[in-house]
C-alpha cells in the first residue's frame, strides 16, 4: 500500500536500552522528518533528511540518532532511552517541505520505564 508507515505502533522499553523506531514511505519523497509530540509542546522536530545520506538536526536532537541509507527508510534510534523520551513519535515525508504539505505516519507511542 502506498503511504508512510511507522513501526512499532506501541513500544515499552526500559531506561538505558537502545530502541529503534522505523519509518517507511512509498512515494520516493526526498524529505523525511521525525517529530515528537508532547502535551504543551506540540510537535517538535528531532531530525530531518533532505535525501539519502543527508541528515540534519532539528530542535531537539539530543539522545537521538538517525540514518538514511535508502530514500524510503528513515529509522530513529534512541541510543540509551530515558524517561524524558516517553512521547508519541511521528515520522513524515514531503516532496518539498518549503512548498508542499507533509504526510505523516500513524505515530509510535513510546513509553520508557
Amino acid at each position: 500500500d502506498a503511504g508512510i508507515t511507522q513501526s512499532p505502533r506501541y513500544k515499552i522499553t526500559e531506561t538505558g536500552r537502545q530502541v529503534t523506531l522505523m519509518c517507511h514511505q512509498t512515494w520516493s519523497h526526498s524529505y523525511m522528518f521525525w517529530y515528537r509530540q508532547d502535551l504543551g509542546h506540540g510537535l517538535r522536530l528531532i531530525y530531518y533528511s533532505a535525501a539519502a545520506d543527508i541528515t540534519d538536526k532539528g530542535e531537539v536532537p539530543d539522545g537521538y540518532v538517525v540514518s538514511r541509507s535508502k530514500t524510503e527508510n528513515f529509522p530513529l534510534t534512541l541510543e540509551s532511552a530515558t524517561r524524558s523520551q516517553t512521547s508519541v513519535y511521528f515520522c513524515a515525508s514531503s516532496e518539498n517541505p518549503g512548498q508542499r504539505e507533509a504526510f505523516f505516519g500513524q505515530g509510535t507511542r513510546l513509553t520508557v520505564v
Partner: protein
Amino acid sequence: AQKVTQAQTEISVVEKEDVTLDCVYETRDTTYYLFWYKQPPSGELVFLIRRNSFDEQNEISGRYSWNFQKSTSSFNFTITASQVVDSAVYFCALSKYNDMRFGAGTRLTVKP
C-alpha cells in the same frame, strides 16, 4: 529562527458557534510557507491548507476559512457553524526549505 505561537491551548464551543484559532509566526525569511493540520482523536495528522508568503488572499473551503496577514505575522483559522466532528487538535506550521516547525496546537472541543 522560526517560531510558531498558538496562544490558545484549549477552546470549547457549542455546536453551530463560529470559532477562530489564532496562529502567530516569526521568521526572518521573505519566502516561507504556512500550513494548518488537524489531529482528530484517532491521532493521525491531516493536512488542511498551505499558503505561501506572497499570497495574502484569504481562502474559504466550505465551513473553513483562513486569514493570512503578513503585517501582523498571523495566519488565523475560522470554523463557521462548528460541528462535533470538528473536535480535534489543530496545528499551525511554518516551513522554510528543509524544515517545518509547528506550534503547540489548539485543542478544540465542540459540544452538542
